[in-house]
């Protein structure tokens, strides 16, 4: 994964970016530290017509039906700089309270598409629930599908293409996760877990009681 501000790689348990020290607090300082109440489809930039909105909402609803744990949110607005759109997506998915999303679905299950028609940039972020299953490359593929449409200003068509591709990727990953959940679980193991694994290997994969271990350490 990469830092939303400096786009440098960071490890999976980083409390802050080891390169630039970025945290959510920095984003709060920029965009506000209070929760924001918005709808899952918020067209602040006004780039979607009424008919387009219905099509986009239908596509979002389809994702919700096929993946009952998940929801898709779309925000369009002017953010100024391209570099800001990463931080804004990160901040919005952590601070937004989506009015039309059931309370049982936390933002961890959200996928947020942010479009800035002024700076001609778009970003896609997702919550912790999809952390083991999606990668940055997957989101890039989805946005690539929409690129040609957004170049022509056909925002709704681009969003539909992106959501369709997202649907196919999620279906594939869900089938893979059903077959081999351990494969995805290993992706999110933190350094502590890895330390346990190394210890188990050194111990010849024998189960060692913590007390015994502490005794050995004392000696």
């Amino acid at each position: 994964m990469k830092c939303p501000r400096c786009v440098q790689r960071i490890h999976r348990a980083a409390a802050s970016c080891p390169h630039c020290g970025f945290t959510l607090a920095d984003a709060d300082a920029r965009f506000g530290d209070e929760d924001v109440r918005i709808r899952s489809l918020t067209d602040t930039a006004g780039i979607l017509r009424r008919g387009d909105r219905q099509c986009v909402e239908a596509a979002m609803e389809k994702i919700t039906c096929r993946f009952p744990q998940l929801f898709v949110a779309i925000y369009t607005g002017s953010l100024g700089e391209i570099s800001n759109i990463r931080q804004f997506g990160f901040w919005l998915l952590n601070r937004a309270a989506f009015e039309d999303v059931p309370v049982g679905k936390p933002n961890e299950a959200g996928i947020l598409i942010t479009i800035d028609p002024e700076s001609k940039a778009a970003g896609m972020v997702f919550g912790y629930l999809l952390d083991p299953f999606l990668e940055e490359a997957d989101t890039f593929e989805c946005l690539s599908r929409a690129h040609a449409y957004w170049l022509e200003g056909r925002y709704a068509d681009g969003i539909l293409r992106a959501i369709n591709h997202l649907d196919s990727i999620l279906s594939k990953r869900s089938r893979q996760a059903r077959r081999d959940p351990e494969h995805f679980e290993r992706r999110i193991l933190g350094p502590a877990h890895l330390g346990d694994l190394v210890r188990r290997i050194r111990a010849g994969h024998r189960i060692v009681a913590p007390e015994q271990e502490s005794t050995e350490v004392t000696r």
Partner: protein
Amino acid sequence: MKFFPLLAACGLLISNGFALDEPMLPTWHGNERAELQAKGWVPGAILLSADPVPAEPLKVEQPKPEEIAEDLKPSPEILEKFLPAYFAERPKNFLIDPQGLLSPADYRDRLGFLNYHASDSSIDLFVYVIGGEQEIPSAVREEEMIERFFSAGRPAAVVYYYLGAPQRSVVYLSPSITDAVSAAEQRRALESSVMQAFEKTKPSEQFEKFLVQMSIRIYWMERMLAGAPAVESVAPIANSNEQDATKSAKILWLRNLAIRSAIPTAAILGAFMTIFGFLHWLRLRARHRFPEFEVEPRLGGSHAAGIGAVISFASAGLPPASQRDQVPDYLRRA
């Protein structure tokens, strides 16, 4: 110089010696020479003339008057005793040879072929075998006879075949099919059959080739009757005709096979489509769930860590492929 008279004398003696071995020349007797000269004979005149030497006349027996009378007939008509067998009624067999011009074996083989043709074709082929030099009596009107005998029943092609002279053959069609088959087509059929017959020299073999080709041509007439357009416009060669007939038979077989297998194929395809559609519908209706793992929060975010891509669509000159490797802005080249 004294040797020359001696050599000449020796040569004369030797030549006289050889001359004594040859037969003696004829000599005149009495007043034979005087008589001939009195009649105007000139000695050696025969050698001066360009006319060939008259041969000695052969003793030929003079023909009798009745024989001369027979030779004056240009071609004999069919004897009257055979006429009823030929023309009195609609023939019972496809091969009519009351004169026994064909050998029994040939007759049997050709009749077998004509019977086979009748079983395979909707147009029967009747063949009247007539001697190569014979003539149909003028009292017999062929067209009228065809109309009388062959108007009813299955359509038929009637051929008068002159054994040993296939070029004299004539073909008639029964009235029910004359409208559908043009006179030109009839003529072409006859011509190609005659051409085939002339590939052989024996009359019986000519007859066999003629019948085979005529049978093939009748197949084309059948197609005309069925409404199919005639494929060829010129008199074809037999080989191409046979190939066409074989091809047509294959096409017919394939068409029948296609008709017979159409329903099962459609049923199988329909079943596959139904199954495929059902599976697709099931897949669309499928609900996917992800296993939930506990993920440690990062960068202070309680719901998300900001993982995801950003893409710029400011210019068509900056395609997605060039944006795949997303690096910090300060690492980008100016």
